[in-house]
């Protein structure tokens, strides 16, 4: 019989490797000293947080959510309410309660509060939504996104309706985003190896047997929904500080599409897949953006039509779904090279036709 270390020891490699990747990217960025590149990497780190947040719920529960960007919206506006200068709030958002107008917190205090605000709404929505399964659950999360968007687009005295809310303190320093992205990765890992994560994945793979094993499926889904609501809410708060401006439509269909496509390409049931999907597709988006602007190739101007970026994302996502539905990572996690070899030996007797998502930390 094989002796096995604790769950933490067996799985700790994944968050360490992913955090090291993020740190390497950050160090390279600082070393390059380029301001536009700095802003690009901030965008990448925000996407890492978003997609990792999506993974926490979608990856472990197997229920597709179209609604999480709603929590990003809640987090972003909550951060705006907490950090804008009181005078600007008084003018732009007079409907806010007096104490909130008077409040002005540093961004790093406001961000976790904003994330918690989003998580509270995830809990409230989740109490209802987590009773649904499959496509019904997915459509209900989409309805939730639409509701949040419509409320924020029309409640002008509190959200400024569709006009931009400006005056949010801008944070251009890279490190807060690095720390937040690593924090999100660690949270996702901790949830995945927790008892809640274990039960949720069992319920995803074999719901009937999971129930017969004493697992309360709606409850475990709710736990993941709230945790992922917190993470996507935190991403929203920092998104607000990265731009200094928010509108409700920033956090709607385009962002949902982008985040989901990155998760699908990376591998829906793998934390490593979530992070790598962001890194790979962000690189591609950057290249396509460059091409949309036009590149001079020895006298010949190479330029692609605008909008090709989204189209390319769509094509890649469809191709992945057709040819490698478990994504780049094939639902595996990044581990130390030695452990991988041992694992490969373990997995040898498995049937090679198995395309079921595993997503299980081994």
């Amino acid at each position: 019989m094989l002796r096995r270390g604790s769950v933490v020891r067996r799985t700790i490699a994944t968050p360490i490797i992913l955090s090291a990747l993020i740190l390497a990217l950050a160090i390279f960025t600082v070393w390059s000293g380029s301001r536009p590149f700095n802003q690009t990497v901030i965008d990448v780190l925000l996407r890492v947080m978003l997609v990792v947040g999506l993974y926490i719920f979608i990856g472990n529960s197997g229920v597709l959510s179209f609604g999480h960007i709603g929590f990003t919206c809640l987090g972003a506006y909550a951060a705006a309410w907490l950090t804008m200068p009181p005078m600007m709030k008084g003018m732009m958002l007079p409907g806010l309660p007096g104490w909130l107008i008077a409040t002005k917190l540093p961004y790093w205090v406001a961000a976790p509060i904003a994330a918690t605000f989003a998580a509270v709404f995830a809990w409230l929505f989740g109490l209802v939504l987590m009773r649904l399964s499959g496509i019904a659950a997915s459509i209900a999360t989409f309805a939730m996104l639409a509701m949040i968007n419509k409320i924020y687009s029309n409640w002008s005295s509190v959200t400024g309706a569709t006009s931009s809310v400006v005056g949010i303190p801008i944070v251009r320093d890279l490190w807060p985003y690095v720390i937040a992205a690593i924090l999100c990765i660690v949270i996702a890992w901790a949830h995945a190896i927790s008892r809640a994560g274990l039960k949720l994945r069992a319920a995803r793979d074999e719901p009937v047997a999971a129930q017969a094993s004493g697992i309360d499926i709606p409850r475990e889904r709710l736990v993941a929904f709230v945790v992922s609501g917190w993470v996507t809410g935190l991403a929203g708060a920092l998104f607000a500080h990265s731009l200094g401006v928010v509108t409700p439509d920033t956090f709607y269909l385009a962002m949902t599409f982008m985040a989901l496509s990155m998760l699908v390409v990376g591998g829906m049931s793998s934390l490593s897949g979530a992070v790598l999907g962001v890194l790979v597709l962000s690189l591609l988006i950057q290249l396509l953006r460059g091409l949309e602007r036009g590149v001079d190739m020895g006298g010949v101007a190479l330029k692609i039509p605008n909008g090709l970026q989204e189209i390319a994302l769509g094509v890649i996502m469809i191709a992945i779904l057709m040819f490698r539905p478990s994504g780049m990572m094939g639902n595996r996690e990044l581990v130390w090279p030695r452990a991988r070899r041992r694992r490969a030996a373990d997995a040898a007797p498995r049937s090679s036709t198995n395309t079921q998502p595993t997503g299980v930390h081994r």
Partner: protein
Amino acid sequence: MKTLGADRVSVAFAGLRALSGVTLSVASGRIVGLIGPNGAGKTTLVNVLTGFQAPTEGAVTLDGVPLPKLGPHEVRRRGIARTFQGGRLFRDLPVIDNLEVTGVGLGQSRAAAIAEARAMLDWIGIAPLAERIAGTLPYTDERRVAIGRALMGRPDFVLLDEPAAGMSAPEAAELSALIRRIAGEMGCGVLLIEHNVGLVLQLCDHIVVLDSGSVIEQGPPGVIRASDKVRHAYMGTAAETDLPVPEIEG
């Protein structure tokens, strides 16, 4: 001493009566057999007893007291466990984790769940399979793992849904020995649903025969063996065949 019972349980699916007024009980340490032709309602009854199916009429009772309407996970936490036709293991997890998840589902810490899982595999005699991925196991091992999973947390009752299906005679004999130990050594009440009538007659203290959703006969093996009603309903055209028969195909 505990008793799990069905009290005049009826289930109707859109007008179709799957069960009508079924009453039976299983006591700690006893093995009760549930037999009947395909479509008789055996699995429906197991689903009712384990909370997967709400009865249209009647109730499930524990020690004579009707249980409130509970979800399957709550029924399991009250000590009523089951297996499924076809195993339904967590195929991508190693055997040991299949049992561990169930311990955790029942509220144990991971360490406690793993410790119990190891002891359970040992007790069943499949400790060497601990690290095998469940989806790669041969049929008979899969069944034994499923039984081990159902026994996690020491339930008071375990409902086995066709555990011997597809097994050879020696394998079925080994399974019989295991079921005897579950009742004898663990003191579990066992409800055994089986197509293999020979196995049921030889193992069970009491046998209930279902046909078209109703109990047509019950009693000790001798009564069932001698019953004309059972012979008719259960054997259909093969009325002259002597029981026990090794296996009845649907």
